[in-house]
């Protein structure tokens, strides 16, 4: 790919952003034609739970290890960068064509600006070797913009049908206009019960719509039972997510 494709799934907390990211990961796993880096950038580590991928170490652990190494040994910037590169590769959990990276819990107190820059660049370096990077972001774009990914190319805004969810999605777009050099942005509306709800959302927002995901009993069961979304069978929400991927151009039919 000539242009890096970094997809950040953003939205208000509780709208099903992680579920949408998990469904997209499931579809990209099934598609199998491209190598996908999946980044769980939410400190709640929900995406790892949804995909049943539990990396023993996270980016934050690597950060701490590097700090410790620097304190114990002499190392120059090149050695440091090589170490970060090695450790980032080491913490990737692989599932076929998917490689999974967990950013981990929030950082501790203290200033490690140089190191954070190294880590951010290491993630960017990794993403450049994948056809697509899918990030399940923390609510808002702050994390995607500053701490995890500098350049998100595609913003997938997720909302439920509530006015509050839509409003937050619109706010994220406003912030992104200034802060993220994205190429494409679209809204996915989750847990839609009927055409009336969909119509009401259409009338309430100017955000470009990628699609609607219906309320889905299979998704509810997988969520409730903490089952592996990579194995979720065909269901209305999954097929609607597939349509969204097709609409956004990430998946060809």
């Amino acid at each position, binding site marked *: 790919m000539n242009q890096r494709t970094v997809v950040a799934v953003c939205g208000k907390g509780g709208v099903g952003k992680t579920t949408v990211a998990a469904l997209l990961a499931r579809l990209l796993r099934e598609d199998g034609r491209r190598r996908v880096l999946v980044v769980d950038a939410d400190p709640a580590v929900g995406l790892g739970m949804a995909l049943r991928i539990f990396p023993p170490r996270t980016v934050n652990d690597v950060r701490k290890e590097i700090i410790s190494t620097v304190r114990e040994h002499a190392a120059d910037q090149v050695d440091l960068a090589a170490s970060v590169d090695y450790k980032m590769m*080491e913490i990737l959990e692989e599932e076929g064509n998917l490689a999974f990276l967990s950013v981990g819990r929030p950082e501790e107190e203290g200033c490690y600006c140089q190191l954070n820059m190294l880590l951010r660049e290491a993630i960017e370096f990794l993403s450049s*070797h994948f056809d697509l990077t899918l990030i399940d972001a923390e609510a808002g774009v702050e994390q995607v913009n500053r701490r995890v990914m500098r350049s998100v190319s595609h913003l997938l805004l997720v909302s439920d049908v509530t006015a509050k969810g839509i409003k937050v999605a619109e706010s994220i777009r406003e912030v992104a206009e200034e802060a993220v050099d994205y190429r494409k942005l679209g809204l996915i509306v989750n847990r839609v019960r009927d055409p009336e709800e969909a119509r009401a959302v259409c009338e309430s927002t100017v955000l470009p719509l990628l699609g609607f995901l219906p309320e889905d009993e299979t998704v509810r069961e997988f969520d409730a039972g903490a089952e592996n979304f990579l194995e979720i069978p065909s269901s209305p929400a999954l097929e609607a997510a597939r349509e969204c991927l097709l609409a956004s151009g990430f998946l060809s039919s």
Partner: protein
Amino acid sequence: MGLFEEPLKDIRRYLEEKRSLGKAREFSYTPVLPRASSPQVILSEDTGLELGSPGTSSRSLLLWDDSGAVADGRITLVGPDFPEIGGGRAPLAQVVMVGGRFSDEYDCYRDLRDATYNLGLLGFMTRVLPGRQSVWCRISREAMARGFNAQVLGSALIQAVKSLDFVDAAEVLLVTSSPEDIEELSGAADLVQEIVEALIKMYEEMNFDCDTCEYVEVCDSVVELRRIRERLQAERGGGEVDPG
């Protein structure tokens, strides 16, 4: 006297022993055309062979010699060649010995290290952990099918370091046989690590206070490090030269 004289002696002894036991075989350098522009990521499902991966034994050493003792173009393999391993995983030690003129030791070390980090071989992923002297390689199924072997890796390493203008000769030792065979290199490896760390500290921190430096014993035992320290002190207008 060279910076890596002692560990090089250890490696020469190791090589002689393996040869005498019939455990070493040699290949000669053949030019390799790098075809990848940057380090690659090879996922497990595309991997034909994994060498020195986390959890297996791994060592990566880089040493130089200015006495003309490096056998230019020689690649020595202790253990099975890559196609003979038959997929899966194997331990790996990678020792690159370089002959040439090393007027600025730190710059030379950095240039050599950069050259070996970035081989640019298509279907070959390498990751290094300098502080632990670890090298982790994945060779893609496609590259294995194309005949990627120890001679290709050894040749790529030789080619990479010989692209530097201060390098006259390069020799590579690869060990794939067992963690025990790799462990036999640990004495040399530890010494190389200490020397390199002392060198980095000397140049980057410009620290010449031997009373507080944790590498003082290394400097005391490696004549070349003392010489470098004295030269840097003189160049930078440091205090009294410690006669060592």
